[in-house]
């Protein structure tokens, strides 16, 4: 019995030895960048593209001579759309692979899952997707849109340009739509929209039978007031939703739908003919007419080897985030997370829509907001944009519990949720 136990222990030890030996000996020669996007499971549909975009950006940077005189090395892992696995893989990237920064996550839950890991191991996460806000962490940089960089301008546009008076807030039942709709509801009411002129509807993930809801929307829209749908419907559910809209003959002229989660990538699975004129609010469209964008699209198509592949907003967010990180590392002269966190605030890099985006002290960035209409070719045409850049707001001004909160990760405040009313930094004590 004892010999058996001993031999298995030896086997275990060998296993450990093998695993630790697999860390390459030349680890010092490259700077490692972690890519944490699902390549399988339900989210692969959106995230695989971002993995490819990151590989392209790293490739391009290496062609330009790398960073701090070293080559960049991408470490790709697959968290398989499994949220605990996101945390496990993040830990592996930081502890075992010793990456200097991680670019990744799509869903809010994946971000929430890895958050404690980044805090504990003090590393950097660049999160490229529009999200619900209500968060500001020292170790995370939010390069996607906060609600005030997407939802509120879109509603303003509909209200002012289209004269919308009646609102359907339709979303998938998860935290991003819930929070966004709550903010919008508060905002609309502040603008004098009556309770009965707002309809809120939630559907499960991957909802595919939209007949009832679309006809409810139709009925809601026949009250004699101009009606619009604000859609926070997520990923997969959009295709059947839009197909049903098209078939039931809801035209953009009558009841426009403005979506916050539908980009070029999602439209690629759809015949957009019947959808022309429906709207999306983003900070980037592939149709943006700038040199930087043309260059980016060209590089992307060449990299992926497919002329039909499209670009989208989260890709631009990675583009901005990655360049910010590069610039901050150059500024700090090291990849040490603390130094980069100090250096990155205020860093400004060109975005793809012809301006510059800057990292703000609350770890959100400045972005222009564009409203685009769906075209028959699956692209968006910008019909409106903010005159200047909008600063990402971590804590919404329209929610009672967060309107007093601000975030500033510079010294001396160094706090992600500072309550201006009580003058205290709430929650966990800030890291030093």
């Amino acid at each position, binding site marked *: *019995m004892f010999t*058996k*136990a001993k031999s*298995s*222990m030896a086997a*275990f*030890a060998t296993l*450990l*030895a093998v695993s*630790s*030996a697999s860390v390459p000996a030349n680890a010092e020669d490259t700077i490692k960048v972690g890519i944490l996007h699902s*390549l*399988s499971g339900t989210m692969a549909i959106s995230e695989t593209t971002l993995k490819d975009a990151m590989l392209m950006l790293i490739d391009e940077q290496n062609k330009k001579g790398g960073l701090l005189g070293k080559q960049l090395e991408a470490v*790709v*892992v*697959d*968290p*398989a759309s*499994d*949220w*605990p*696995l996101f*945390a*496990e*893989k993040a*830990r*592996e990237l*930081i*502890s*075992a692979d010793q990456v200097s920064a991680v670019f990744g996550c799509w*869903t*809010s*839950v994946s971000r*929430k*899952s890895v*958050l*404690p*890991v980044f*805090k504990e191991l003090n590393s950097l996460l660049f999160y490229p997707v529009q999200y619900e806000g*209500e*968060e500001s962490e020292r170790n995370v940089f939010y390069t996607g849109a906060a609600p005030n960089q997407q939802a509120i301008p879109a509603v303003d546009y509909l209200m002012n340009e289209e004269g919308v008076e009646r609102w359907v807030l339709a979303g998938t*039942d*998860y*935290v991003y739509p*819930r*929070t966004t709709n*709550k903010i919008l509801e508060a905002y609309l009411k502040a603008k004098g929209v009556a309770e009965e002129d707002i309809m809120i509807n*939630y559907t*499960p*993930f991957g909802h595919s039978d939209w007949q009832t809801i679309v006809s409810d929307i139709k009925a809601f829209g026949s009250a004699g007031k101009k009606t619009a749908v604000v859609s926070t419907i997520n990923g997969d559910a959009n295709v059947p939703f839009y197909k049903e809209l098209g078939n039931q003959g809801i035209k953009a002229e009558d009841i426009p739908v403005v979506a916050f989660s539908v980009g070029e990538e999602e439209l690629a699975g759809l015949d957009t003919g019947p959808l022309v004129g429906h709207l999306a609010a983003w900070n980037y469209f592939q149709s943006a007419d700038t040199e930087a964008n043309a260059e980016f699209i060209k590089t992307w198509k060449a990299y992926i080897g497919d002329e039909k592949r499209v670009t989208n907003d989260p890709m631009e967010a990675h583009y901005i985030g990655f360049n910010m990180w590069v610039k901050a590392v150059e500024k700090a002269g090291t990849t040490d997370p603390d130094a980069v966190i100090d250096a990155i605030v205020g860093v400004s890099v060109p975005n793809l829509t012809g301006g510059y985006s800057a990292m703000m002290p609350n770890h959100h960035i400045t972005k222009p907001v564009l409203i685009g209409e769906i075209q028959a070719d699956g692209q968006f045409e910008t019909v409106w944009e903010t005159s200047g850049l909008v600063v990402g707001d971590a804590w919404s001004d329209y*929610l009672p*519990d*967060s309107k007093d909160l601000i975030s500033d990760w510079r010294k001396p405040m160094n706090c*992600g*949720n500072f*309550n201006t009313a009580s003058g*205290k930094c*709430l*929650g*966990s004590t800030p890291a030093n």
Partner: protein
Amino acid sequence: MIFGHFLKQGLASRYVQVAVLILLAVAVMVPVLNLAVPPGNPFHLPDHWVPLLGKYLCYAMLALALDLVWGFCGILSLGHAAFFALGGYAMGMYLMRQIGSRGVYGNPVLPDFMVFLNYKELPWFWYGFDNFWFAALMVVAVPSLLAFVFGWLAFRSRVAGVYLSIITQAMTYALLLAFFRNDMGFGGNNGLTDFKEIIGFDVSAGSTRLGLFVATALFLIASLVIISSVVASKYGKILVAVRDAEPRTRFIGYRPENVKLFAFVLSAAIAGIAGALYVPQVGIINPGEFAPANSIEVVVWTAVGGRGTLVGPILGAILVNAGKSWFTGVLPEFWLFALGGLFIFVTLFLPKGILGLIGQVKASARARREKRAAEQQVLAE
């Protein structure tokens, strides 16, 4: 005395003895290799391995629990991850309450997600979860209760075989949908996360991790011994009897529904404990744990290791998950091919799993030995 005999039965099996010894050794060696061996030494166990190994052991416990009902009672539950997740949620709720005013909104009572979803007060079902022992009770009670109600209904109406499998799947699917709803008050899709401390210890501290790991190993050992004892007792024989010929047991006067129900509830309770140990180690519990695919994966671990062998499922769970960790890091695109291939391979070529294979090899060796001995005897005569 009576328990002593009960447990002695369980430890009679050679496999169980070996497994208990190995698990004890692991429970000792992991902290030693992690703390006492300096980093850089090839025998050092890196910090990030500790929660990973802990997770494997939790899965092993879940597979063990499934083996009790599937291996010994023929109930193929495709909803066992539901019990695991419910145990996890009970623990998660305790951990959420422990955050207290350290949440981002600084609300001393309400967890963050409730604050931004406009809850004014704590829902009633969150009461009591600030107390560890209450939560610990719920970890066992909630999955057991669900298993009891579900099993009582299903076994009494003699729903069996494939039908039972499919309605267990419906059960976990319904729970999945229900927990996804934000109106349920369990945090919706985001689930429960950002835990701070457990019974006063910082969850992200290395020592807490080691403590949780050792606790998991000990709970796994305890579950193994208990289940092994249950299976070796006369009750275990009735269980097998029900599996082999349910009408026969009924006509000699047993009530198969009660026999099954006890095993099902015990199994659910162990699954719940496994879930509760899992949550502080991985740092999140969300409705994804209820996904029917998760439950099916548990079945695969059990099948790979060897159904009805108790030790096999533990081995299977650890091997498959270690494989998953390795594949998703090294060859991410091929993970599903490998997993799918494994399913097919095991069902076609290893119907009794790895442990069954070992058993077969041994049996044939013994047969050969006996044959040779017999021949020699003949010769000697």
